[in-house]
């Protein structure tokens, strides 16, 4: 998978953190 750049707003709350973690876990190429 190619590198993907992902922007998540509200990443401080529980849902935002879980979302950021999900994308980080998805691929080592993902940049959040």
């Amino acid at each position: 998978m190619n590198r993907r750049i992902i922007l998540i707003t509200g990443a401080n709350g529980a849902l935002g953190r879980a979302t950021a973690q999900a994308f980080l876990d998805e691929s080592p190429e993902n940049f959040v």
Partner: protein
Amino acid sequence: MNRRRENAETLAAKNPDRCRTISLDVTRPEAWKAAIAEIVAAHQRLDVLVNNAGIHDDALLAQIKMGIMARRAGREFGGVFHSCQAVMQVMISQRNGRIINLASLSALLAPPGQTNFAAAKAGVLALTQSLAKEVARIGITVNAVCPGYLDTEALAGLDDDAKKRALAQIPMRRFGRPEEVAAAFRFLACAGAGYITGSTLKIDGGII
């Protein structure tokens, strides 16, 4: 630094090569423009936007002050509007992009006490459907997610009786976990979801 910013900073510190935080007031178009410019300068692209920011500030309509109503609309709807506008240029130039907007079950099944929140989230659904049609031909998908009751900060304001009443409405008899909504965000951003656009995915344990 407040507590919630600190949480994001902690995650970024654990993943220094793959994660960073940006201070962004989602209600200000100029802040969005600057943030996207910063991201594009650093990475030359932006593939996925997850509009997750939002807060609850429930009250009966008769008790809502105009200033609070305007702030709610500005944050819940205006933030999504400004963000989508800000990322359009880069996603159109890439001819690729994924936008996922956090709405709410309240947009589909509006409870009392959420006239401002539910209306703003319904606006997010309409924006999602309209924008999806505008950009479908250029490889950009736009979808919305409608969670029901989640075990997050949003539940912290409910007392035990209110939580019991909420649980009684949920066929699965449990609150959703943040990871279960995050999985939906990730799915809608994956290559396999490339034909899904303008959709609303509800994640509510079977309420509707």
